[in-house]
């Protein structure tokens, strides 16, 4: 196997979404460079070994691992705590879809009580309300006058800041969202069909030469 294939193998393993097999690697190389290319499944294992030797020698923080006939990159275990820290920080920060939904209900319907939120979402929302309160995206803004005088929730200054809004009335209105989201797929399809018709017409017309549009 030619050495130039080392880099191609490296790039293929790196970018593959799933574990990639020797067979797939060979197929991609032959697919681009031609069936006659001198490379076989058996070469791939050796190539991986050379690559890993290179990574060790040059002190690189990851290597290729072989799993069930396939290959993938993995960071070396000594960095696990740093990576773990980063990913747990990230997962803590990310707003879940359920939290986003709840936040949206509060933003548009504030001030709103927990029972009202729950009746819109159809599920218990204690945990999510706590999370949003903790992250200072919502706050308790008072009590409703209704029976039991439940707490009212509303969005905070932080919320506005995060979304770059000056005031609550700057939130896009559902009507405005509807306007840009109206069924444009259909319109586009129709437009394409019409365009083809027009082109045909223009062609006919240029054969005909004498279409008098001035009268129109």
């Amino acid at each position, binding site marked *: 196997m030619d050495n130039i294939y080392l880099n191609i193998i490296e790039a293929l393993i790196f970018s593959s*979404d*799933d574990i990639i097999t020797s067979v797939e690697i060979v197929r991609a190389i032959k697919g681009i460079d031609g069936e006659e290319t001198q490379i076989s499944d058996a070469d791939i294992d050796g190539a991986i070994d050379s690559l890993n030797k290179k990574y060790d020698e040059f002190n690189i923080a990851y290597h290729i691992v072989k799993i069930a006939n396939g290959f993938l990159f993995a960071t070396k275990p000594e960095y696990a705590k740093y990576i773990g820290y980063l*990913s747990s920080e990230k997962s803590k920060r990310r707003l879940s879809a359920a939290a986003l939904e709840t936040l949206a209900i509060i933003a548009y319907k504030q001030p709103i009580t927990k029972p009202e939120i729950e009746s819109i979402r159809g599920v218990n929302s204690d945990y999510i309300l706590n999370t949003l309160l903790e992250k200072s995206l919502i706050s308790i803004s008072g009590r409703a006058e209704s029976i039991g005088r439940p707490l009212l929730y509303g969005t905070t200054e932080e919320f506005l800041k995060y979304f770059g809004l000056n005031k609550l009335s700057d939130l896009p209105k559902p009507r405005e969202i509807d306007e840009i989201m109206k069924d444009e797929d259909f319109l586009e399809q129709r437009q394409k069909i019409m365009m083809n*018709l027009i082109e045909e017409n223009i062609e006919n017309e240029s054969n005909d030469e004498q279409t008098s549009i001035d009268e129109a």
Partner: protein
Amino acid sequence: MYKIKLDQFEGPLDLLLFFIKRDELNIYDIPISKITKEFLDYVNLIKMLDLEIAGDFILMASTLMHIKVRMLLPREINEKGEEIDPRTELIQALLEYKKYKEMSEEFSFLETNQRKINFRGNFSSDEKIAPPEYEILLKNVTIFDLAKAFKNVIDKIKPEIFHEIKKLNISIEEQISFIMDKLNINKELHFISMINEMRDKIRIVITFIALLELTKAGIIGIKESMNFNDFVLYKISNG
């Protein structure tokens, strides 16, 4: 009429730019009547077919016809005493549009380059050791907070009037094994739910002392709960 693909035009300005380019017209001296005629040819076709985009083309057509008429009239004069070319606004709009049209080609170029690079695809084997959760969760929790949480719980219990004084035989040791038994069954234990079963204040107090003993010995850990004023006990494996 030239054969052109209509769907390559993004709109009336784009179509006008096409005419200007094709016929090598001077954009500052557009022959309005010639270009208006050609433009109208297309608009009539589009109108005939009731296209969604027709409105934008018709609007431009009427602008062109308006300019055409004004070209025939004596020129208006601006405040500086100069003649106003009726085409000025159109020219400005065409140039402005062309500026961004050119940039869209640059964007297309960047897009082409960017499509040649690939990002890493498979992250499933990267080893991760998450920091022990209690370290993060308990970052700002002091023993004072712990005691306050306990006091709040105690205060919430409605004082019961006892007609009889019951003698309780509870020891710290007993409550230690009570907690450990529970933790052997459940990995985690909510403090509130544990003491909810307890009727006597003294039992709760002794359980709390037992809990502090276990924490001090490093046998169990305590972390924050999602519920306010509650906390969660868990066993620390292998001491």
